[in-house]
């Protein structure tokens, strides 16, 4: 079957147009998707960049504060030595005394230094040359009387890192304290360093900020420690890219990044997103949309090609062409179907595009939020640990102060008066000092409280300090609201001793722990969450686990409110929640994490991705529409000139040849071809050339769907190899989203279904292969197994998908019991019908268009419903059969039907003559009756009847043609016999002249009456049930 040149050209045009559409769509779509992703990241990076300098400044402030706090501690220590020197507490400028102080104050070194830099006494050797101008700060204390500023010497090469503090002893002498500031720098490193700031910034999902010096291009911070200290230019960055405000692609190491450069104080901060991260999800989104588009385009194009080839083969039907202006014809036969295909395809592209965009947007948002909130939760945990650490640190410091106070009072008990205590409190930089005697009665204080004695009531705050009088050396009470004033206070006590060293009371420090408070505050939930950036416009909030109230929210009015009042539900309060929530009527996308005290949520409005999916879908739809329109026109229209030539070249008449397994059926007034039932049941494959264009298209579509299903299945099975950890699709496959009616659940359900269907199909194929080589019983078993696999997979998919969609499957199982109960009560028939209906559909006993015979009724199946099946009996009557009543079905849409006629010939006729006539004439009959597929065949003598010899003629035909063909065959036989003078015996009636009948005589009448009466009497006992009640009898009896 050769194609004409014209057709070849047209097909080539269609193929080229289809490929071009796919390419155009691919390029535009990935361009748009990339642009959108980039724009989204651009906005986020811009926002982060704006906040970065503020964050860095804040960190800088914090460093300054930490330094100040640290200095204050050691200045206070120096000052307390100065106080001791001034107040007759046994101070002397000796090395031994200095060592005592060194231990008491817990510092690295204590020295007494003259104004000219000479060291008068020292606890340990010093490397400092106090004479040099380098230490001029220290000498300031001599003139001011205040503790000096710190001098720091930092020579890492010589292992010399020390801070120096001084306090005045007299005009010519000062005390100098040396301390290694390692503790300070550890604090700075962990709370205020650039690294600590940058570590908390996240761009999108895996993006981060790294910093490099603007001068040396050495990387100063990078989340990957291996890169810190590396040369950025050497690692592949381009100097030209390093401009403030530059946004674009860059290379660092073997990673390609999309980044935004931001120059702050000689340091480039680069907000970077790995290229893999930028593309991966988008690529899959584009891939899926493109696949669907390709399928649609291919469908339309292939359909066009199939129809055109079929047309050419069968010859053009001129009626199908409608002339258009401009010398074009429209093929009506294709036009309507191609239009339907195109429209469906167009909507499919739009729906899939919107679906994929939503999936992409939501999953990327979900991932970002989840990662962010996990990060926040770990920050909270860390800061709570840090708080505990800080509290310990402060307790230690305060205890040290209390010990200094106790030391001083041990050496000079006279100082226990208001003025001196005030002076000491100033030196120690604390608020209150109290001294107590051995009875627990207050003896002196610098505060306004007087006449105070320790409580005897164990419930009271002060009771605890009685321990000091009973052998405990020191006591640090945790900070808390004061019982008397209600202010935040912390009390620390250390025992004092008399000259003999026995305890004679204790000294108590009263502190308003503002510094601790501020420090603790900085690790409070408010503070931690306050600085959290969640994409553009997002924020973090926390819910108290204990009472489900909001512990932190950017809007202060919300804090303390129960979450349920704000619109959230109880079941949203859990670890790993990720879905929409409603707070104050505002719908936000949120993800949650759990800490020991809180549920932390990162929430944000629908991002730009969500906002853009509409326009993007429209754009995709637009492109699809144009491409489909072009293809449609190419398929449907053709130049007028070509039509005639093609029509002439066609040879009609071989239409049905070689298509034995195809059956024409009529549904709703439209005739179409369907596979014969037997072919369907035995899964015989059809010869490609036998198929109609629609079937070919269906076949191609099945291949496409099969390919898609297998691809999805492979993606699911090899997800770890294909998708990176933390990518969007591994998120969907990972199942950490909320179960419920959301896009992830639906996607996962589809994926699961694909997986199961692929596996099922493979198992069924294997069973089929097995069934070919085993004997009959094996075949039955294989069929049964295949059937079981099919039902199990369908039930499995249903069950699993319902679970994914948030249906409580346990309840579902329980409700199965409920269902049984309902069935037993009365819904039995309906349920049976429904189940029977399902079985009819799944088993494929018959389908719409088949001619079947059920319980003596024969007809064409019009509709298989859930409960009933409708059959047209051919006389215009519609039989409605309940599905449960459909049993013993004879499906007559089998491969062949036979029309048969039986004719009798006279015994006198020569059978041989008749047979020779038939052998001559039967082919002619076939030619005259197109409904005959094969035959007619002479089946032989069926009966030697009373009056005739019966012979049978059969012809193969379609079931729907059978009755008509039977009639036609009868007619043909009659005409044939007439032509050849073969006599057909028929009952002949011989008419005779009427005879005259005689009347009965009276004697005869009497005799007859008597006979009747006798006979009746004789048979009275005999029953008459066996009597044959035919119609005449009935009517006579009436």
């Amino acid at each position, binding site marked *: 079957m050769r194609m004409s040149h014209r057709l070849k050209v047209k097909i080539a045009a269609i193929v080229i147009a289809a490929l071009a559409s796919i390419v155009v769509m691919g390029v535009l779509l990935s361009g748009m998707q990339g642009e959108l992703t980039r724009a989204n990241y651009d906005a986020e990076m811009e926002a982060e960049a704006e906040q970065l300098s503020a964050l860095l400044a804040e960190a800088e402030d914090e460093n300054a504060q930490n330094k100040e706090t640290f200095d204050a501690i050691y200045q206070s220590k120096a000052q307390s030595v100065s106080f001791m020197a001034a107040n007759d507490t046994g101070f002397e400028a000796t090395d031994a005394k200095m060592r005592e102080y060194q231990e008491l104050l817990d510092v690295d070194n204590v020295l007494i230094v003259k104004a000219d830099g000479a060291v008068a006494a020292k606890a340990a050797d010093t490397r400092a040359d106090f004479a040099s101008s380098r230490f001029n700060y220290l000498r300031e204390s001599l003139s001011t009387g205040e503790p000096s*500023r710190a001098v720091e010497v930092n020579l890492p090469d010589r292992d010399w890192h020390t801070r120096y503090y001084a306090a005045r002893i007299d005009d010519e002498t000062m005390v100098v304290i040396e301390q290694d500031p390692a503790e300070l720098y550890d604090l700075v490193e962990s709370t205020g360093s650039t690294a600590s700031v940058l570590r908390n910034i996240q761009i999108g999902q895996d993006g981060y900020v790294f910093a490099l010096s603007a001068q040396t291009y050495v990387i100063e911070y990078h989340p990957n420690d291996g890169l810190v200290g590396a040369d950025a230019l*050497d690692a592949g960055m381009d100097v030209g890219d390093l401009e403030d405000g530059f946004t674009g692609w860059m290379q660092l190491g073997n990673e390609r990044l999309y980044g935004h450069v931001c120059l702050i104080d000689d340091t480039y901060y680069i907000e970077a997103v790995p290229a893999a991260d930028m593309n991966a999800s988008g690529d899959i989104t584009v891939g899926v949309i493109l696949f669907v588009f390709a399928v649609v385009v291919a469908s339309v194009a292939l359909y066009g090609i199939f129809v055109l080839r079929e047309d050419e083969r069968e010859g053009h039907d001129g009626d199908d062409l409608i002339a258009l202006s401009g010398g074009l014809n429209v093929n009506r036969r294709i036009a309507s179907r191609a239009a339907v295909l195109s429209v469906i395809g167009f909507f499919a592209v739009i729906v899939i595009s919107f679906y994929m965009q939503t999936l992409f947007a939501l999953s990327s948002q979900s991932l970002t939020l989840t990662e962010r909130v996990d990060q926040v939760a770990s920050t909270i945990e860390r800061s709570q640990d840090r708080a505990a650490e800080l509290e310990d640190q402060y307790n230690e410091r305060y205890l040290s102060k209390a010990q200094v106070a106790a030391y001083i009072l041990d050496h000079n008990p006279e100082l226990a008066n208001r003025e001196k205590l005030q002076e000491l409190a100033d030196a120690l930089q604390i608020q209150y000092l109290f001294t107590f005697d051995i009875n627990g009665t207050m003896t002196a204080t610098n505060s306004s409280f007087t006449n105070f004695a320790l409580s005897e009531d164990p419930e009271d705050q002060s009771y605890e300090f009685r321990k000091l009088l009973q052998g405990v050396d020191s006591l640090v009470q945790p900070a808390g609201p004061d019982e008397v004033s209600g202010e935040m206070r912390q009390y620390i006590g250390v025992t004092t001793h008399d000259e003999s060293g026995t305890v004679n009371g204790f000294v108590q420090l009263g502190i308003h722990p503002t510094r601790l408070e501020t420090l603790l505050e900085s690790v409070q939930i408010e503070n931690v969450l306050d600085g959290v950036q969640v994409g553009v416009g997002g924020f973090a909030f926390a819910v108290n686990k204990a009472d489900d109230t909001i512990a932190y929210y950017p809007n202060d009015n919300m804090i303390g409110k129960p979450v349920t009042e704000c619109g959230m539900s109880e079941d949203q309060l859990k670890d790993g929640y990720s879905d929409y929530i409603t707070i104050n009527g505002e719908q936000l996308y949120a993800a949650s994490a759990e800490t020991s005290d809180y549920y932390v949520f990162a929430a944000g409005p629908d991002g730009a991705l969500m906002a853009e999916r509409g326009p993007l879908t429209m754009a995709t739809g637009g492109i699809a529409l144009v491409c489909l329109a072009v293809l449609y026109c190419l398929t449907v229209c053709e130049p007028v000139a070509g039509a005639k030539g093609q029509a002439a070249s066609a040879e009609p008449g071989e239409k049905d040849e070689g298509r034995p397994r195809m059956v024409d059926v009529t549904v709703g007034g439209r005739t179409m071809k369907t596979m014969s039932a037997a072919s369907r049941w035995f899964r015989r494959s059809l010869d490609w050339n036998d198929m109609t264009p629609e079937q070919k298209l269906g076949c191609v579509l099945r291949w496409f769907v099969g390919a898609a299903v297998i691809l999805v299945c492979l993606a699911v099975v090899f997800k770890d190899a294909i998708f990176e950890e933390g990518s969007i699709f591994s998120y969907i496959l990972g199942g950490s989203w909320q179960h419920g009616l959301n896009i992830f659940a639906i996607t996962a359900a589809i994926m699961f279904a694909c997986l199961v269907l692929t596996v099922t199909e493979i198992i069924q194929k294997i069973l089929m292969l097995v069934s070919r080589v085993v004997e009959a019983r094996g075949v039955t078993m294989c069929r049964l197994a295949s059937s079981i696999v099919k039902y199990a997979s369908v039930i499995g998919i249903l069950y699993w998908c319902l679970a994914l969609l948030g249906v409580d499957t346990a309840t579902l199982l329980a409700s199965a019991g409920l269902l049984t109960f309902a069935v037993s009560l009365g819904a039995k028939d309906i349920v049976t019908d429904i189940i029977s209906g399902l079985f009819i559909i799944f088993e494929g006993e018959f389908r719409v268009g088949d001619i079947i015979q059920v319980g003596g009724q024969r007809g064409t199946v019009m509709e298989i419903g859930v409960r009933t099946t409708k059959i047209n009996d051919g006389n215009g009557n519609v039989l409605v059969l309940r599905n449960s009543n459909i049993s013993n079905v004879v499906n007559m849409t089998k491969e062949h039907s036979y029309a048969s006629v039986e004719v009798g010939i006279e015994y006198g006729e020569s059978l041989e003559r008749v047979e020779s006539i038939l052998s001559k004439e039967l082919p002619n009959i076939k030619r005259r009756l197109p409904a005959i597929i094969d035959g007619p065949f002479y089946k032989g003598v069926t009966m030697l009847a009373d009056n005739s010899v019966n012979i049978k003629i059969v012809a193969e035909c379609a079931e729907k043609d059978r009755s008509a063909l039977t009639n036609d065959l009868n007619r043909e036989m009659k005409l044939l016999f007439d032509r050849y003078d073969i006599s057909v015996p028929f009952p002949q009636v011989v008419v005779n002249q009427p005879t005259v009948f005689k009347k009965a005589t009276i004697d005869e009448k009497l005799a007859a009456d008597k006979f009747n009466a006798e006979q009746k009497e004789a048979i009275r006992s005999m029953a008459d049930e066996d009597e044959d009640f035919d119609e005449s009898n009935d009517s006579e009896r009436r």
Partner: protein
Amino acid sequence: MLGALPASLLMAGCSDDAVSAITGSGTLRAGVRADVVGFGYLNEGTGNYYGMEIDLVEELASRLGYGDIEFVTILPENRKEMLLDGQVDLIAACYSIAETRLENFDFSPAYYDDRVIAVVQNSSLIEGIDDMRGLTFGTMSGANAAPLLSTKLYEDGFTSGEVVTANEDNSDVSFDTWHLLQFPSYQELSDALEDGTVDAMVLDGAIAQTYMDDKRHVVDGFVVAEQSYGVATQKGSELSAPVAEAVQGMLDDGTIDALVDKWD
């Protein structure tokens, strides 16, 4: 005035035979600094040089038609010998154009103007040059900071210029109102400032950037000298004229400005 200076100025002399080796070779050998961030800095991790002078030499080489550049680290104490011996073709290494140097070398037009400054510790409470009376200045031996400083202090009337004592290599010189210590490297000079051995360090502004932190400051209103960096070539070398022209070209078309801007 300061009589004898550390570096061996007198060693200049016999260098006529080195010139011929320059032309024809496709590789330009450039002497650059390895320790001055922003000008010539060698990243030891990678073995690459970065800085304004590095970019300048690369641009120069491309304008002069060299196919390849070999960077050679030079130090203040050996740079003269390196160039005179022909171990390098030119020097672009924070090398200031000075009268004494012009006797031995040809210089291109200045590509960067710098000042020699004094840096002190904040904790020394030194605010101006007057606070420095009787204190110790530190310089790097081999740099020309020491003669410039002594000249400047003499001209300002800070000192009579009279040397009280001096050791044999002039690394420790006492004047009437000030003391001079010279250190073999900038790092040692900086360390001396950190531990208090010197009260102020005097060095090129460009180099000082490397050693500044928030605990140090530049002495206000005290500029030891203005100086300009040029690309040095051997006296009378065939390279001298093309180099000078190329640098002038870069000055004219804004290339130098762009480089300074980029590395600032």
